[in-house]
């Protein structure tokens, strides 16, 4: 894991995190979160409501972006906030690439732009986060 350094700069990119979600993982996540909405594990149901197949939980993508940040900050900072908008669907068996960039530094407060990309580079999740350096 690459960690946040004392010399963090505006414009600096976070080390990217690439996840490889599977349908098995969606079932695991459904159970662990307690979200049993069928669009995440029942292909027929998902297609009946107009989706191309089962899709990732928005909150699973939020968890991936949370990991992007906590991997980066380690013990050197505290996560204060994270906000994400789900702009597009993501399907299992396709890599999900989590990325981020430092947008502002004010004393110990560091603001980030974070996003998740699908295989074609489309940002299907966009958001911001704030961390406080220890």
């Amino acid at each position: 894991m690459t960690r946040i350094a004392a010399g963090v700069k505006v414009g600096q990119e976070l080390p990217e995190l690439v996840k490889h979600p599977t349908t098995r993982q969606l079932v695991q996540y459904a159970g662990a979160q307690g979200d049993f909405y069928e669009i995440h594990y029942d292909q027929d149901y998902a297609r009946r409501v107009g989706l191309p197949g089962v899709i990732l939980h928005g909150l699973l993508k939020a968890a991936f972006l949370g990991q992007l940040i906590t991997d980066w900050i380690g013990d050197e900072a505290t996560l204060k906030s994270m906000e994400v908008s789900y702009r597009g669907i993501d399907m299992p068996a396709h890599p999900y690439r989590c990325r981020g960039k430092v947008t502002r530094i004010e004393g110990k407060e560091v603001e980030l732009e974070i996003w998740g990309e699908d295989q074609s580079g489309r940002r299907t999740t966009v958001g911001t986060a704030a961390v406080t350096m220890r």
Partner: protein
Amino acid sequence: MTIAIVELIDRIKTRIGVDGPPVTATVEAGHVRRFVEAIDDPNPRWTREAPPTFLVALASASMHLGDAEDFGTGWLNGGNRFEYFAPVMIGDEITAVSHLEDVFDKAGSSGEMLFLVFETDYKNQRGELVARLRGTVIRR
């Protein structure tokens, strides 16, 4: 359809700001382990502490509003905002209280959509606010 959604929104609006029943649950080591296995985050820190989005597994990020299901055919998650005030450790007893913050409609590419915004406060066994979650769910 337009008149129906206006009436539905007026009906749902009466719930804005009304707290739902509190949900209390212990942050169990086994539950956190299953959660971090599911999100595939091997950080050893999660053997002591809950990862950032775990709270949604303790209490749902949105209240069930059956009325909203009178509209459209399915739910979508629009977004989430997590604010953190104190760490959530394994063994903590967390109480979550949710309320509806807003309801509105918007025209999207696939037609009219109904937006519901919920806010949930999570407090620990010492009564400290540990996190606040805002969630936007879309009915379409």
